[in-house]
């Protein structure tokens, strides 16, 4: 399992793809980072301590919105990481090798998942360098940082598992990437539909549908992590989501054997 993960990681980092993805991502992140940092520092100079409607807390007013912006970027970047997981194997014909090898499907699956997640974690690591630099100019709280990054890791885990599932459907990487993006986006905005649920399904079923749609909204569960709160219900949601995504991927890969 770890051998597979290692192989995956090596594949990512031996080709320039990982560097290009992380490098481009960090340019975007850097622009967001600097814009909001500049704004925040200027606010601090204009507003005397204790004045104004709320205190200037760097976690609350800078890091939290910054990481929320980062999540939007992940929406675009993560499909680039996951699209190749199975699609590439299929295209290059190594899928048969994998299926007939003595390593079990689950080992391969988890290995690939860990590999992709490591690349994602490396991306988060780069953003963490930016955020940690703030400690040189002030005293941010570190506990909310830990919860926020835990949330980001779990959130990304969900996307990676969905991305792998989509990648297992096709041998075309571009198709896999596009489909993953659409699925991510759907999961992202699903709670927008929640408001109109009662109108669509009537007063008896509507509220239930609304609650379910709200619950499925993948970003909603990150909010508490971003604030500095750990809530078991969000942990359960993310872990179940990842589990189900990986389980479906396993079934999908398995069906490769007997489907015509």
């Amino acid at each position, binding site marked *: 399992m770890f051998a597979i993960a290692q192989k995956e990681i090596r594949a990512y980092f031996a080709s320039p793809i990982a560097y290009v993805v992380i490098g481009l991502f960090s340019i975007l992140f850097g622009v967001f980072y600097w814009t909001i*940092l500049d704004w925040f520092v200027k606010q601090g100079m204009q507003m005397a301590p204790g004045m104004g409607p709320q205190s200037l807390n760097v976690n609350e007013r800078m890091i939290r919105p910054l990481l929320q912006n980062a999540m939007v970027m992940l929406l675009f970047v993560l499909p680039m990481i996951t699209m190749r997981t199975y699609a590439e194997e299929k295209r290059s014909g190594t899928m048969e090798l994998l299926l007939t090898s003595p390593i079990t499907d689950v080992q391969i699956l988890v290995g690939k998942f860990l590999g992709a997640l490591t690349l994602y974690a490396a991306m988060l690591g780069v953003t963490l360098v930016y955020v940690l630099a703030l400690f040189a100019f002030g005293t941010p709280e570190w506990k909310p940082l830990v919860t926020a990054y835990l949330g980001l890791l779990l959130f990304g885990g969900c996307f990676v598992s969905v991305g792998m599932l989509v990648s297992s459907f096709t041998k075309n990487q571009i198709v896999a990437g596009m489909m993953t993006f659409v699925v991510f986006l759907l999961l992202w905005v699903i709670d927008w539909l929640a408001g109109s649920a009662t109108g669509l399904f009537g007063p008896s079923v509507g509220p239930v549908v609304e609650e379910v749609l709200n619950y499925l909204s993948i970003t909603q569960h990150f909010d508490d992590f971003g604030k500095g709160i750990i809530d078991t219900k969000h942990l359960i949601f993310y872990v179940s989501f990842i589990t189900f995504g990986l389980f479906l991927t396993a079934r999908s890969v398995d*069906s490769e054997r007997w489907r015509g």
Partner: protein
Amino acid sequence: MMRKLADYSNWLAIALVSVALALFLQPWRPEWSGYARYLAVAGLVLLLLSMLAGWRDIAATFQRRQTRLSTITITSVAVVLGILVLINIIGTRQSKRWDLTANAVYTLSDQTQNVLKKLDGPLAIKVFYSQKEMDLQRYKDQLAEYEHASSHVSVEYVDADRQRAKAIQYKVEAYGTVVLEYNGRVERVTGSGEQDLTTGIIKVVTGTQKKIYLTQGHGEKSPDSTERAGFSTVKTSLERENYGVDKVALIEHGQVPADAAVLIVAGPKTDLLAPEVEAIRKYLAGGGKLMVMLDPPESSKSAPLANLEGLLRQWGFDIGTNVVVDASGLGQIFGADAATPVAASYPAHPITDRFGYMTAYPLARSIGPLKNGANGHTPDTFIRTSPRSWGESDIDGLMKSGEVKFDEGKDLKGPVSIGAAVSAPVDAPVQTPAGADKNAKPSETRVVAIGDSDFASNAYVSVQGNRDMFMNTIGWLAQQENLISIRPREASDRRLTMTTAETRLIFFLAIFGIPGAILAMGVYTWWRRR
């Protein structure tokens, strides 16, 4: 034959179920959705029958390897999904939560938790917001905790601009109004602070009506009169905020009613009798709240209201025998003359806290604190007229000719105080009513005196901020402003200080340095592999 029949019934079943689904989902005729169930059941029965008829075929399909495997797959997916759904349902019902922020910003106080735990019915919270003009995040952060603390709480965000009808229905007048609905009662709160929200919840949950009494018998303004000088508009406003309004003749009653939250003496023409003043004095000693609105005498020969003024003097009020004249011309903006002084800015006081409207007082006298107070009470001025106004002592001259000027030494120099308030802890510890929250603030005696009663009459109450001034005063007197005191939990002030050189350094590192290094590593790997 049998086969054919089963085939047809299959199609029929599918058609029935589809129609049922369509009926169920269509929004136009909700009454039809009742038929949907019958159609669906009929369809399913048909399907079952045809399956029974053709069971041999179906069994044969299942024996094929591929179908068997895909059935296994579908079943296993359904089972796993079911288990996960179950875990998540349990997870949302019983979750644990840890707030790791330094000041526990997102943790509700014990008082709020207690209030929420005692809810035994749905509490609907509606936030009326404006997309453009306010920061909704603070409301969301705060109310999410309320929602989490009690399953009875449900929060809804209403765009006050787009859903005008709803805003009107709930009598919402300002962005950021939070409407609390519980058990058919409604309470309105402005702001996202925990103190305001929880106070509002306590009010809407207990639902006890605070009674306001207006004294009668000496030519006071009547809450039932719809005349220009009447107080019926004020009565309506009070009732909208869940106050009960009633009249009381103290001489008949002998004492101030025990349930009086506030006693109002609104512009008496003749003096109160000694036993009446005695009744009020006793009421105040037990933590009573009094509001006196005292108009200036009609002429220099009018008899002074000695008893009433004596009572106010004991509480430290200085009552001037004058009419306040305002030469600033501010009153002309809404068609009033110089005898209608206008207040545009207010001294710091809880009554006028966050209050930004002009108020106008037709024919007012000066009422302020006595120089050194009395009996240890020194009222605080909360209404003050403009610097270009004065207290004209020549009342007869003013009334006859209307032409007056400021006489140094004789007249009171502006700005003139025309409204003042005093509060004092209750001397003798009164028995707290049973069931009172022990977190409730201790009761205080509170007295407000204003040198005018017309500002709240039907004719003038709608002028500028007059109504709000009156309601704020009543709110302060009734000690409705804070039923509990909660220390506001603000995130601590943690800011970043950077020199210009440092900002420049960070700029280059963030946008060029770090990404550049990573891309360079990429180029290096690519070059090495070639």
